[in-house]
């Protein structure tokens, strides 16, 4: 009985967390961005399956502390991919909150938007490096 209750609580928690986290990612539009940029809309369902497996992998990794012996090279590749994902996520978040449009409206810049985007990118890169190396 105890075990059943425990299993139920764990299960319900997992389901709630999963829908919340992935609804967030969907709403922010990370997948949409990646898929439209590469024009692979036809395979939308495959990408969603990948999200399921990715989510499960992350969950198992963080809860059961597995080791994946891939060494520095493997860690580099994974970190690069994760960084790309977070980069897209961060800018998608800015886009959803329409940070750039509002900013450019306030300071009345219509031309040269690419420069603003570039500054955005460089700023993010600098910020990440400074945080990692000086804090």
């Amino acid at each position, binding site marked *: 009985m105890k075990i059943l209750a425990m299993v139920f*609580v764990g299960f319900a928690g997992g389901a709630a967390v999963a829908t919340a986290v992935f609804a967030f990612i969907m709403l922010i539009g990370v997948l949409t961005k990646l898929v439209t940029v590469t024009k692979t809309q036809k395979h939308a369902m495959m990408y969603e399956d990948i999200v399921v497996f990715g989510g499960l992998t992350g969950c198992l990794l963080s809860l059961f502390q597995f080791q994946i012996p891939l060494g520095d090279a493997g860690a580099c590749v994974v970190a690069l991919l994760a960084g790309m994902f977070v980069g897209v996520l961060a800018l998608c978040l800015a886009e959803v909150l329409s940070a750039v449009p509002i900013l450019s409206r306030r300071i009345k810049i219509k031309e040269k938007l690419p420069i603003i985007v570039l500054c955005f990118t460089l700023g993010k890169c600098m910020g990440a490096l400074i945080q990692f190396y000086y804090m």
Partner: protein
Amino acid sequence: MDQNIYIKIKKKTEVTKRKVTLSDVADISCSDKNVYHKVKECCVHEFLGKEKKQEYVGDVLAVIEAIHLLHPNAAVQSVGESDFIIDYASEHKNEKTNPFYVSFKMTVVGAIIFVGAAFSIISFHEDAAVPRTLDFIYRTFTGIEPDGPTIVNIAYSIGLTLGVIVFFNHTLKYKMTDEPTPLEVELSTYEDEVESTVIDKQSGKGEQ
């Protein structure tokens, strides 16, 4: 007598020929077959210039004018979009459908999404102290101090997987309901927004 012609223009049309006729961009309905065949061939836009990829934003008024030139008595009723996009590409799809290129892109995107999904779950777990919460639940129910991963962790993992599957509404090839999946909905919303932005930009240019 006035001849009623109904045209329903599609928001976006992709063509590979330079001369675009009305039947390419719109559905036409007309009770008189002769008029129908005449109007069908009415030229909407002709892509000049050498670029292999061109875009044209037209509006329904120009189309109605063109129909009136052919058939002055026509009463044209537009029931579709009032602004529309025509995309011209001399060889559509050639590079796009190169299977090697597509699968390369899919691999890269797939890898990013896979690692990204794992990353976001891990970062959420760290942030919200989920492992400690699960240990707390274990302790609450059994009174035993958990030593390593417990049964709650396993149940949680299964729940998490099922939650995502329910959210996306399908696993692999098997769909639970006939509704489109969230990603498909997002994609079509996104495309709609892109199209209206293109139209807004173009019609803005025309006025200046």
